[in-house]
């Protein structure tokens, strides 16, 4: 078994109710949930693999493909929508050459739409990894992703 998984499992008792925290910890450590990790998690929590997949696919946070180095979460809440989030998404997609839900081939960038991130007074906004980029305009987007646009 992957050493990362051994480390993660050592923090838990292996109870079914811990399934979501386990999945979160594995994803945080490894970056995404591979089929192999899912199998190990199922064995560790004493539940069928189908159940682990059932839970993981229900929640938007879990991903089964690797994330980019810079993971962009685009807020599609109502306040951001009103302030022009669709335009911002278009700009980012143009700059990075990836669509919502995709990861760039060089694994540098990935992007997904998320529900309201509670920064409505700063709309429209995105989160790059754990940082909120606020009051975005097409110009600001260009600045943010300027150097990355060409090497997609």
């Amino acid at each position, binding site marked *: 078994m992957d050493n990362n998984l051994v480390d993660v499992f050592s923090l838990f008792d292996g109870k079914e109710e811990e399934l*979501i925290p386990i999945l979160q910890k594995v994803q945080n450590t490894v970056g995404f949930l591979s089929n192999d990790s899912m199998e190990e998690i199922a064995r560790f929590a004493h539940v069928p693999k189908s159940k682990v997949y*059932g839970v993981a696919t229900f929640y*938007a946070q879990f991903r089964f493909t690797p994330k980019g180095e810079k993971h962009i979460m685009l807020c599609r809440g*109502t306040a951001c929508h009103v302030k022009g989030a669709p335009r911002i998404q278009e700009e980012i997609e143009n700059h990075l050459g990836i669509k919502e839900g995709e990861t760039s081939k060089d694994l540098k960038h990935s992007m997904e739409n998320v*529900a*309201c991130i509670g920064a409505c*007074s700063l709309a429209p906004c995105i989160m790059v990894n754990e940082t909120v980029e606020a009051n975005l305009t097409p110009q600001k987007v260009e600045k943010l992703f300027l150097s990355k646009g060409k090497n997609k």
Partner: protein
Amino acid sequence: MVKEKRICLKNLGKINPESIDDYIEAGGYKVLESAVSRHHFEIIDEMLNSSLRGRGGAGFSAGLKEKFTSESCLRCEQKYLICNADEGEPGTFKDRIIMENDPHLLLEGMLIAAYGIGASKAYIYIRGEYYKSIEMVKKAIDSARKRGFIGKNIFGSVFSVDVEIRLGAGSYLCGEELTLLESLEGKRGYPRIKPPFPAEKGLFGFPTLINNVETLATIPTIVGKGSEWYLKLGTAESPGTKIFTISGDVAKPGFFEVELGTTLRELIFDLAGGMKDDKKLKAILLGGAAGTFVDETVLDTPTGFDSLKEKGATLGSGAIMVLGEDKSVLNVTQSILEFFKHESCGKCVPCRVGTDRVARMIKEINNGIYQGESGLDDMIYEAEYMAKTSLCPLGQSLIMPLRSLKRYFNDQF
């Protein structure tokens, strides 16, 4: 000009939120200390007398909820307290402000509530995307545990409680209390049938009290200063203060804690600096996606759970989204209905099919290709049977924005 009255945000900007010493110096954990020396019925009575209504959106009496949970069984081996910090209603960010700026106040409120109902385990379920809040609450729990405010025999009493953080995994629905329980048990976030209510059978089948962050952060003040003091704030039907989060086309978007009864005009024009670029006000979306649209005729209505209901509006979580004259109400409606479609869990067929149908209808209306006679009436018809046949508030609340559109913006269709 209306002024803010801060209870939940009383320490905001005055103390370093990472320092437990700062919080204690500002009078923190004193209320907990005196509370654990009183009989727990006294705490619940104080809550009942304060008439505090839940700040998460539904507005149910917080005292009654505590009473039910404490009395549902006297000899159970376990009771739980859960703080619902899975803030996901679009336009709402009050819980984030509390957790980031005064996590100890929330923690003290949780501990007092846990003592009131006799819970020995408390969970705080935080939105996974709220990185800063998670960090602040984690630090607060660690330092409170070191001081003995969390753990065994708190302040030398018989009261013992442990607090654990759980993180949401990206589901709007899990902000609904019964769905949140499913998620805490490690399952898909499907709603449960109620009754039984959590007060009888909640987490793992044990009596459970679930409260919103703002509700819990109010408790130290109510128990500390007494319900009589608290009742002097706000209006008779909705006493106390409320944090409003204002976004959209205003000059100074942000959060403001005011006494209930403050009008929308005072909130938008006095506190939030009025309309941005002197635009004309077209609509206000109150209470987020599961909220209601109103126009300027509601500006002078005092805010409160019942006063707004009379106007076909809802206070909800306190989100105020302001739309200027250049914004399209129909476009915002489409965004809301697509949001519901995306977040429907699919358990109840009427909601699964209905949210998709209604989202398609508004799209067709906006593109000018809708074939039916009255698009809005048709959507309301769909939403009405969804409201009657869905298990949880998601399927039940589509009717809210649609009905308010009928009342205030029928001419836009």
